[in-house]
């Protein structure tokens, strides 16, 4: 029966080519603009590590005087060196790492290349396991190497390509900022967005992933300077030593807590620690601690700009307009065919058959519109690359689920749009219809 309805649908669509083309174009445009905007902003507002984000936590502490605090009452999103070290020492989480951004000069092992600064992070060895960083060769370093501030380094695939021509460079030496470092691992491309482990420094998005990682302890020993610093008061001593002792915050922290009980215990521990520091006179102002899991933290940090949500609304509005448009056109087309329906009903077609026939026709339009929308989405993605800054454009990936969503939306929209006309058309009294024509 379906084959017959399909044949009927195609014949009917052929009869009014212009109207059919309009409907298909309208759906195609609506779906494409909606999907293109969605592709960008879904990526921007996505969960960077969905399989684990509910078990990753970011401890925050309000440590400054009231006068220096944010107006919205949110504590800082980074820690001082003293506090980060205390949390590392107490080690109350399953895995944890203090993190800070570094940009040392790297002298490539191959001759004939110039030194260049490479952005990366100083982290603890647990960082890689905790955040499931993918490795091409080797692995992260051990906690013994953390403790010994060992000169080891993990390279990104890109830096490994540049410095060693892409070979398995584990065990090789690399000159970083004037010292030899032993390569212990090479990561595969890894640049989760938002950059959840360093929202403080990155602001959320970076076009390039980190180029290298080295032990936090080693970076401190080598006095590798950091990226962003936020201070209440100027450090009382100059240079790196002053920064380490100061109340300036510049270190981010991620902890893995595997159960609600563990999170509760950690929250208690954090409150106790802050209380102790407050009594000792190190922390000013009222207690203001937070321990949020990753999604909650990213939300509170407003990493995803408010615009994104407005854009999603606009895209949704566009889709609604297209839907209304298609309903109008389908309605106009189907209601005109009461004579044909009358004949079919008089010849014994039940209402269900009329529904099926019209829904098939609507579905065909939907599929055609969806296919067109697919092509237009593809064009839209190309335009996005031209218009958007690379750091956002890189996020906009046309993945399989999006493709599926495109098609499903198109067919669903048109079938919904075809439902009412076919419902009305099927109710036409055959006798009345035959008489009037």
């Amino acid at each position, binding site marked *: 029966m379906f084959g017959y309805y399909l044949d009927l649908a195609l014949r009917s669509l052929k009869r009014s080519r*212009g109207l059919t083309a*309009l*409907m298909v*174009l*309208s759906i195609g*445009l*609506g779906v*494409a*603009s909606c999907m293109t*905007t969605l592709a*960008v902003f879904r990526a921007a507002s996505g969960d960077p590590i969905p399989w684990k984000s509910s078990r990753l936590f970011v401890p925050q502490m309000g440590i400054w005087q*009231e*006068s*220096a605090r944010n107006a919205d009452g949110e504590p800082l999103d980074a820690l001082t060196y003293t506090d980060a070290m205390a949390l590392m020492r107490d080690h109350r989480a399953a895995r944890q790492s203090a993190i800070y951004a570094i*940009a040392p*000069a790297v002298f490539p092992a191959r001759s004939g290349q*110039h*030194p*260049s*600064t490479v952005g990366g992070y100083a982290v603890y060895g647990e960082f890689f396991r905790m955040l499931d960083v993918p490795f091409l060769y080797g692995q992260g370093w051990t906690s013994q190497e953390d403790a010994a501030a060992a000169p080891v380094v993990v390279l990104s695939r890109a830096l490994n390509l540049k410095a060693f021509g892409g070979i398995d460079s584990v065990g090789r030496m690399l000159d970083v*900022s*004037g010292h030899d470092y032993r390569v212990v691992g090479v990561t595969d491309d890894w640049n989760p967005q938002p950059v959840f482990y360093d929202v403080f420094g990155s602001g959320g998005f970076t076009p390039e992933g980190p180029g290298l990682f080295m032990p936090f302890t080693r970076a401190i020993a080598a006095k590798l*300077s950091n990226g962003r610093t936020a201070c209440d*008061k*100027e*450090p*009382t*001593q*100059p240079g790196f030593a*002053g920064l380490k002792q100061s109340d300036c915050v510049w270190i981010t922290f991620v902890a893995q807590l595997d159960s609600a009980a563990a999170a509760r215990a950690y929250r208690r521990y954090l409150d106790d620690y802050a209380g102790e520091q407050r009594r000792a006179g190190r922390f000013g102002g009222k207690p203001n601690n937070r321990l949020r899991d990753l999604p909650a933290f990213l939300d509170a940090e407003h990493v995803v*700009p*408010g*615009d994104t*949500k*407005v*854009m999603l*609304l*606009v*895209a949704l*509005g*566009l889709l*609604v*307009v*297209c839907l*209304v*448009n298609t*309903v*109008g*056109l389908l*309605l*106009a087309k189907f*209601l*005109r065919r009461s004579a044909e329906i009358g004949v079919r009903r008089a010849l014994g077609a039940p209402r269900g058959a009329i529904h099926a026939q019209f829904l098939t026709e609507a579905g065909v339009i939907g599929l055609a519109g969806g296919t067109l929308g697919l092509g237009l989405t593809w064009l*839209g993605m190309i335009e*996005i690359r031209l*218009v*958007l*800054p690379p750091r*956002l454009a890189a996020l906009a990936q046309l993945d399989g689920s999006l493709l599926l969503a495109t098609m499903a939306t198109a067919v669903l929209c048109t079938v919904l749009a075809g439902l009412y006309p076919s419902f009305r058309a099927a109710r036409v009294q055959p006798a009345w219809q035959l008489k009037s*024509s």
Partner: protein
Amino acid sequence: MDILPILSTLRRHKLTAWLLILEIALTCAIVCNAVFLISQRLQRMDMPSGVAEHELLQIQVADVLKPVNPYARAQEDLAVLRQVPDVQSVAFSNQVPFGGSSSNGNVLLDPNQPQRTLNATTYFGENLVSTMGVQLVAGRDLRPDDFVDVETALKGLRTGDSKSLPHVTLITRTLAGRLWPGQNPLGRLIYLTPTVGLRVVGVLASLVRPNAYDAATAQYTMVVPVRMGADKSESYIIRTRPQDRARVLGAALAVLKKADPQRVVTTQRSFDEVRSRFFKDDRAMAGILLGVIIALMIVTALGIVGLASFWVQQRRRMIGVRRALGATRADILHYFQTENFLLATLGIALGMALAYGINLFLMLHYELPRLPAVYLPVGAVLLWLIGQLAVLGPALRAAAVPPVVATRSV
């Protein structure tokens, strides 16, 4: 043109007519808000910097090994840069307008007040005002003897020795107006900490913050006489003629490299690039919104074309009868145009209410300002135009229906 017959015809197509009205209303509401959002972006992108943007270059270098005396290194670099042909002036600054990365301080009017009055950005560096072409509207510029080395100032902060701290500052007109509304700011004191009191000696017409994310506080700027040593976070700012910029940048990089071949240039750009980079997201957002508006207009136009052609086809007999009874082609044309105008007007009226509703929702949830009434007519005119353009084709086809159709049976 008689409207009543049109209305009575439309009553026979209630559902389709209402759907078209709804579509126009939605489009109108979205277009009004989107145009408003775009104009806000454009307005932000036009934010004045207060500096001679087309004449400035920024260079940042990172030393692989820390220089023994960073102050001497900075002075040497400045000296060689001044030697580059066509360089008019060179400054060394901790930050640049629209540069993003910024140094900020809490401003107090009374050293003992518990809460800061506001947060302002602090520019450090010699020759800054004259090199960047910032206009001084009152008082004087900073003098060489006002300047204090960063490390001396830090030591002064530590020991509480006020002699080794800077004593004066320049502030923008906007900041002065915010701190002392309607009064002469010259000679007044600002405190960055209870021990650092700075006397205002000059007022700048305008100098934007590096982190000008909020237009309200974008001009909260101070210039403090602090001298810095060479470091990767400081910038050399070079002033030259607009047409010489590319050449001067190349020459400047060459002399800096020659002074120390080991160092790495991390930033080299004109201020036009600084601005365009800072507002990149705004431009992108405006571009996407524009794309969405165009798509929306096309879809709506297609809807109107489709429905109008359908109605024309359906009413061929009626048109034929009217023609046979003496209606001219123009009458038929006007009939369909008026019909579309009526539908569009209804849609626009609904759309305006909807536009305000959407704006209220956005204001409530996304901190957007109120939609100025001026955007409503913009949306209305756009939709009327779209409607008339879209209906023109079908209406012309209707006008071409010959009177003889009336005599044929369907």
